[in-house]
């Protein structure tokens, strides 16, 4: 036992550094843009990415249909056969999309993934979207919508997006009519003629079993990567930037807010990450301290950045005690002023910075970190040194620069606020 231990003194802390790593290049393999990262763990992942996303959907819900039905069958194989074969190979799978890309992911072991990949690729490329499966999907979405319309979180989020975006395809659904209008023909046309373009593949695992036989079909897909990245259009801000949705039977009030942020390529993006962290991006932030830890009015309220190559948003989200909306609004406004004036707790800036740096460093411990970070560089046209530069920019950001960035991009008047709950 060490009796002289002084527990009031913190152990010395060292500067946080980025682990050594190198972005892997994309090279042509079997005629396809390919990125491969060897891996020491006994797991493997295979991504197929089409460089087209929500902004190029021909109708609302198109990618949701693709996501739900991409393994629903081909001319030669039924859904249950595809799923049984993938299960036998211990495979997991999924589809995800954002504004400009659609990704199909296959997970398995390094020994089996090269056997699962051809089944997966065939199912995606030759999907027929059977009418009865599409009907089931639509019924499920309509039923789910019915439940969602009871949720203050869903109503506030949807309304906020719809007030924020001008691009029609980004208006979210509040009616089952949108699902009823989806036809199999339109879905097939989208899949055949629009989705399957500008393909690239990303795989990670220590087995080199991929060959022309495995991924050859993908090489037949046209590639025209010179397409400009599309950007969403934003509605003009109105003088009254707060809308309340009345839900008399709600127990809490959900608050959602959105304003224009920055794309990942913007020089101020790392500094905005830091400003956002101080404002509402981590547990010790101004929003959490004021509204949760000092006033006990919420389980959680936060702000976050969403960023693509050239476009980004700043989002505020929380569920709050219903009779205290005015106090919460006042608190948000007060904390933004404190952020602009630098009148916040001494030490918060360094805490937020170290939290972010620690978080970035920790992200390199994730199994597929190098794959994901290399992929981001390729898909968002970033420099090979992007991740290092991002880390260093946050590290080098001064208090003054952080405040200037907050003044430029984080303003109460720039947000669209939507609340949903009982009238107060």
């Amino acid at each position, binding site marked *: *036992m*060490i009796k002289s*231990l002084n*527990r*009031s003194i*913190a*152990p010395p*802390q*060292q500067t*946080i*550094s980025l682990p050594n790593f190198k972005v892997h290049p994309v090279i042509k393999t079997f005629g396809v843009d390919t990125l491969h990262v060897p891996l*020491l*763990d006994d*797991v493997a992942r295979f991504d197929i990415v089409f460089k087209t996303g929500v902004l190029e959907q021909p109708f609302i819900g198109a990618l949701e249909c693709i996501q739900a039905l991409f*393994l629903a069958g081909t001319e030669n194989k039924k*859904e249950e056969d595809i*799923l*049984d074969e993938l*299960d*036998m*190979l*211990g495979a*997991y799978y999924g589809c995800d999309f954002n504004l400009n890309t659609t990704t199909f992911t296959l*997970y*398995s*072991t390094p020994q089996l993934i090269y056997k699962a990949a051809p089944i997966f690729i065939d199912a995606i490329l030759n999907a027929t979207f059977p009418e009865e499966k599409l009907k*089931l999907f639509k*019924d*499920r979405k309509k*039923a*789910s919508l*019915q*439940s969602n*319309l*009871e*949720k203050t979180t869903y109503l506030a989020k949807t309304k906020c997006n719809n007030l924020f975006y001008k691009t029609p395809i980004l208006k979210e659904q509040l009616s089952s009519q949108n699902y009823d209008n989806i036809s199999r023909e339109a879905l097939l046309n989208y899949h055949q003629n629009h989705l399957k373009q500008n393909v690239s593949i990303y795989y990670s695992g220590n087995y080199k079993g991929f060959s022309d036989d495995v991924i050859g079909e993908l090489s037949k897909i046209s590639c025209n990567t010179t397409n400009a990245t599309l950007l969403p259009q934003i509605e003009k801000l109105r003088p009254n930037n707060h809308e309340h949705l009345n839900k008399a039977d709600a*127990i*809490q009030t959900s608050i959602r807010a959105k304003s224009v942020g920055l794309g990942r390529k913007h020089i101020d993006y790392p500094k905005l990450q830091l400003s956002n962290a101080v404002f509402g991006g981590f*547990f*010790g932030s101004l929003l959490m301290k004021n509204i*949760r830890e*000092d*006033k*006990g*009015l919420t*389980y959680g309220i936060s702000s976050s950045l969403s960023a693509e190559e050239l476009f980004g948003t700043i989002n505020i989200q929380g*569920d*709050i*005690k219903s009779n205290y909306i005015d106090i919460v609004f006042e608190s948000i406004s007060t904390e933004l002023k404190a952020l602009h004036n630098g009148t916040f707790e001494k*030490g918060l800036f*360094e*805490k*937020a910075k*170290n*939290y972010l740096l*620690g978080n970035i460093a*920790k992200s*390199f*411990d994730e*199994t597929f970190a190098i794959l994901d970070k290399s992929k981001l560089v390729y898909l968002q046209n970033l420099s090979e040194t992007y991740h290092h530069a991002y880390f260093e920019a946050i590290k080098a950001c001064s208090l003054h620069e952080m405040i200037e960035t907050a003044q430029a991009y984080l303003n109460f008047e720039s947000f669209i606020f939507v609340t949903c709950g009982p009238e107060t």
Partner: protein
Amino acid sequence: MIEFETFTLDNGLRVIHHYDSLKSSAVLNILYNVGARDESKDKTGFAHLFEHLMFGGSENIPEYDGPLQEAGGQNNAFTTNDLTNYYIQVPVENIETAFWLESDRMKKLNFSQKSLDVQIGVVIEEFKQRYLNQPYGQAFMHIRSNAYKKHPYQWPTIGKEIAHIEEAKLADVVGFFAKFYVPNNAIACVAGNVSLERTKELFNKWFSDISAGGVNKNKYPQEEKQTQPRRFIAPQANSQKAIYLAFHSCSRKDKAFYTLDLISDILSNGKNSVFYRKLVDEENIFTNIDAYVGEELDPSLFYISGKIAANITVEKAESSLWNVIETFKSTAPSESDLARRKNKLITARKYQETDLLNKAMALCMAENMGNINLVNTEADYYNLVSVDDIKAQSNNILTKENCTTVVYDKVTQ
């Protein structure tokens, strides 16, 4: 394969060490053997409320989160019916900060009325957010209160009612800490690029002067065998109709758990599962349906829950569901169906073993179950499950007299 070493401090703190030289961060995970089952009937939700209070500062460190954030670390905690688990993940060079923080709050928490008042407010908002302001949010409260009549699993970790949280007193907080937050009622794990020698040095430095206390004996009133079906109707104005079935099953520590876990996968995992194919795809009775097994340390529940299609009555949905259950019980799955499920489980376990925090928590959980080697042997137990086991367990568990049914039906406006 997760490699580990163990040792115990003189005060009874059990320590697990897992070395992973490839990670730049390190984890300190501490599991306390106390959960919602240790609460009294009229003070439910207290273990979880107490978890919140653990972040209010300790005797020598007025603010818990700040120093960790300065060290580039993150932390969180969760409470279950059986245990409370706290974790820190921090750049490995700053791991000692985690020892400093965790040991000081184990030694003496800073009790304050203000912190209690604020956290009561926060937890009440959590209660509303997760349970009251959501369609079907109280389903598991109804299930627990109907399925359990004696065992404290009859209430959820958030508590039975908001009033119990509102009425929490500072004296209760002090007593709870003294009773359960002692080193010999805890298990700690360090995972990452920290040597065993350094780990021992840090535990000796920071934890060895904390006094031992009483150990939670984990004795609870045991549930009598359910012999009649139980039913609860939960009216719901607008949302989709839904049905929940809960069957008394086994402890997480029981070998039968692996069979039940596989049964739940065969019944509902994916579009090629028994329930999906028959009840969603073929008959369009449900829009989605799930089965899952509870993982509590005392005898738990096996759950089935489904959202009913718009034009189908609750009665029709329920009888169709039972028809599929009875067919499943009488015709066991094929060998290949079972093999597919096992293969998927093996992949899933390999993924879990790639994450440092997952490994640290899994080691503590296995030790808390009484056999740390389970982290490496459970895959074998899954592999040993046979088609006959599936048939026997499904016939044993999935019976009407062993079932509590909760139904969400539409009320007439």
